[in-house]
């Protein structure tokens, strides 16, 4: 602020001492800065540092496929008619000539066969949706297995989780819109599931469908939910997610020069603008090429929906496969309660487990934070092997997801692998309980083995492949000691101590009782970080002792 002199002098000369813009671009930037304050905004962001690792691009794939879905989705809304009014088809696809169908189905047929490029955009939209959900799941795995969700990023983890759930449901609604035989069957499943809700099920069904199944309201209602309600919420969450990523700054792997207090990498401008911006085009290009080559959701092959018809191989898209698995493997328990009311456990139980499987992953950061009691900020990532219990839990969760996916596609597994459909279902019923437990123990042991290997490498060096004969005739393999940077990288991880219960008596000898929560926490903490939970890191003394030894390696 330059002028403190009188009004007359400030009116006669420019108030700013700012340098003259060197070119048109600077002049435009100056203009915008006077209105929007862009310089202050850009100051900390233009050369913002991003660390580099291939796995950090998984989130980018999510972002870019979401943008592709919006772009192609807008195109599709220009041609799609979300109406269940009945029409008779007389289009170029002759097998359906003269067939009655809804306008929603007919306009999807038009998009596929009469609008040039329409089929391509439809395919890109659907493929991008699959890539979007898959990328979100894999991105989430990356964040989970590296411990990137720890303080200060727990809230962003929850935002990401909500995006995953909303993405899954928006996918389901979108898949239902063309009103083809497959998607109609999916909606019928939803209706049956709603009817299984005790007390209010039939009311929700009537209100949602505007009457009895299928009625004529469901497609227009789903359309609004699919293109407006859910994407709107997702856009908000996405912006919040990205703002937090910028605010927290990116996590990084341990390595020389990398600490909890810095972030090492290359600046946004120009390297990441080019890399990330370019990556958008890579993703878009690959999805376009896939869409040209591989047909997805050929609705013309299914035909329009009729409630008394169905095709075999009725499957939802893969990301809903685990809910399909739950519903397929559940025994058909139906019980009578409260004087003749029906409680349809066969559908209700899977419906209750479905959110539990999802929520398990949402609450994990808070559970782990409680067990460790760690209140510090974390910006250095854990190698998955250095957090064996967390890694094992994540792997067990994924195995549960996959087992249920097998259950959801039991008919496909039966036909493709020539297996009995019933045996697959029985296997999944048992596997639901057994497989995650086995996977947990195998993964944990695997991690501990890798930790031991790291320790061995630190203390004894790397096997060089060179065999040396000692004077007394013994053959030994020469081990090359690791470089300082590798030694640091392999031992930079922290090791938590299990939380211990306070002594049974306090300093005055008065008995204290530990609550159930405190006891649970101590037990869990022992499981996570106790003797069986991690391999103690090599110490400098051990290292020095071996190195100063007699060079026996």
């Amino acid at each position: 602020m330059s002028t403190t002199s009188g009004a007359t002098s400030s009116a006669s000369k420019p108030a700013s001492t700012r340098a003259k813009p060197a070119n048109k671009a600077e002049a435009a930037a100056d203009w915008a800065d006077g209105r929007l304050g862009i310089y202050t905004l850009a100051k900390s962001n233009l050369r913002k540092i991003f660390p580099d690792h291939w796995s950090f691009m998984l989130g980018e794939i999510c972002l870019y496929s979401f943008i592709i879905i919006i772009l192609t989705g807008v195109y599709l809304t220009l041609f799609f008619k979300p109406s269940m009014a009945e029409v008779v088809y007389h289009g170029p696809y002759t097998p359906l000539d003269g067939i009655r169908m809804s306008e929603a189905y007919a306009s999807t047929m038009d998009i596929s066969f009469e609008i040039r490029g329409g089929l391509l955009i439809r395919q890109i939209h659907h493929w991008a949706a699959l890539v979007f959900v898959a990328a979100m799941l894999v991105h989430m795995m990356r964040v989970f297995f590296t411990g990137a969700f720890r303080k200060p990023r727990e809230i962003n983890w929850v935002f990401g989780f909500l995006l995953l759930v909303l993405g899954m449901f928006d996918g389901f609604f979108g898949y239902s819109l063309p009103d083809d035989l497959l998607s109609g069957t999916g909606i019928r499943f939803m209706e049956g599931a709603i009817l299984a809700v005790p007390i209010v099920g039939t009311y929700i069904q009537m209100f949602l469908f505007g009457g009895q199944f299928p009625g004529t309201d469901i497609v227009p209602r789903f359309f609004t939910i699919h293109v407006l309600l859910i994407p709107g919420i997702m856009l908000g969450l996405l912006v919040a997610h990205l703002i937090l990523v910028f605010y927290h700054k990116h996590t990084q792997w341990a390595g020389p020069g990398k600490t909890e207090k810095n972030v090492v990498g290359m600046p946004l401008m120009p390297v990441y603008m080019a890399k990330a911006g370019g990556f958008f085009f890579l993703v878009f290009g690959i999805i376009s090429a896939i869409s040209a080559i591989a047909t997805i959701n050929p609705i013309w092959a299914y035909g329009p929906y009729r409630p008394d018809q169905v095709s075999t191989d009725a499957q939802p898209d893969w990301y809903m496969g685990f809910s399909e698995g739950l519903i397929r493997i559940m025994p058909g328990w139906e019980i009578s309660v409260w004087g003749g009311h029906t409680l349809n456990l066969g559908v209700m139980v899977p419906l209750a487990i479905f959110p539990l499987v999802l929520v398990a992953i949402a609450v994990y950061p808070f559970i782990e934070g409680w067990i460790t009691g760690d209140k510090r900020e974390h910006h250095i990532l854990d190698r998955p092997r250095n957090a064996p219990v967390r890694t094992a839990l994540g792997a067990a969760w994924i195995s549960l997801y996959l087992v249920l996916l097998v259950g959801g596609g039991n008919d496909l597994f039966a036909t493709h692998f020539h297996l009995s459909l019933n045996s697959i279902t029985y296997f999944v019923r048992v596997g639901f309980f057994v497989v995650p437990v086995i996977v947990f123990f195998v993964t944990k042991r695997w991690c501990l083995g890798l930790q031991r290997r790291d320790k061995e490498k630190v203390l004894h060096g790397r096997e060089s492949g060179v065999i040396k004969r000692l004077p007394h005739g013994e053959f030994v393999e020469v081990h090359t000691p690791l470089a300082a940077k590798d030694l640091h990288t392999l031992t930079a991880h922290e090791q938590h101590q299990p939380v211990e219960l306070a002594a049974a008596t306090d300093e005055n000898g008065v008995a204290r009782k530990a609550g159930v929560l405190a006891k649970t926490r101590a037990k869990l903490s022992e499981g996570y970080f106790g003797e069986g939970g991690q391999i103690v890191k090599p110490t400098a003394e051990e290292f020095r002792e071996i190195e100063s030894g007699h060079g026996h390696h």
Partner: protein
Amino acid sequence: MSHDISEENLPESHGDSHGHAVAVHDDPFADPGLPVHEPRRTDIDERAAKRAERQVSLMFVISMLATIGFIASYVIFDIDKIVYIFPLGHVSALNFALGLTLGVALFCIGAGAVHWARTLMSDHEIPAERHPIEADDEVRADVIEQFRTGAAESGFGRRKMIRNTMIGSMALVPLSGVVLLRDLGPMPEQKLNHTGWQVATPQKPLQLINVNTNEPMKPEDVIVGSLTFAKPEGLEEEAEDFQVQIAKDALMLVRIAPDDIKDNESRDKGFEGILAYSKICTHVGCPISLYEQQTHHALCPCHQSTFDLADGARVIFGPAGHPLPQLKITTDEQGFLVATGDFDEPVGPSFWERKR
């Protein structure tokens, strides 16, 4: 043997750099610091840099050509032109050409940009400081003081009546939104308990119409071991509520040699071994369409609930909770198969009010 760990990289030479609350082991090997930046080939060899520049430009040029190809494809190919492309089979020429040209056009922009960033832009890693997310104690105390002042000025904590009634009103007001949703649909009433067959009476029976031929059926039309699908007389595809009706009325007719029928009640409801079951699965409502003649098993393709049609459509596998409802059938004076009433129980998936 010499080791390349100098003493200053062992922890004794360093203070504890962490200072954390949770006990963890110290780093046995101290951080040697950022490694020296190593130049890439393109940083020191101008010819390599020039080559990289040409590669990047080439990709952008390919993208331009592909976009022109996209526009040309849009104009050239008819939408109904089908071509054979190995190994994809018969595909739409327009879709294939548009998708690949668009794919190449987009991919090459991305590949060019990434290659540019990797070969020619600086790859010098720079550290930037992080600042703790938490504010320092002074800021914290200041903000809390400001908030306390504001709260005191509002009298929110002091005037409990205002506070409580405000919370009450805000808790109730969303109910208006819920109530407004009431007209989304009608009340369930008895709608789920009855089907289109309910208008049939012994005096005025309804004929069973074959859904494929749209003709009424005589018992001799249904041969042993066959599965036929039927709808009630008078229900036409053109009808406004056809979808809603057929979602409940759809029948499957199976003819089983009477001696093979294990359930007496089921045999009595049929006519000379012809049994009429609801086609709608009692699990979540898919139509059942897979029939195995030898075993008399019918399987729903959605979730594989399997029903034994010879034994009152009892569930023998899968997630369905109860048998398929059976419609009592007989013949009218012209010898056509008819129904004389509705199903005894609701068809389709079960619900809270369903009486068993």
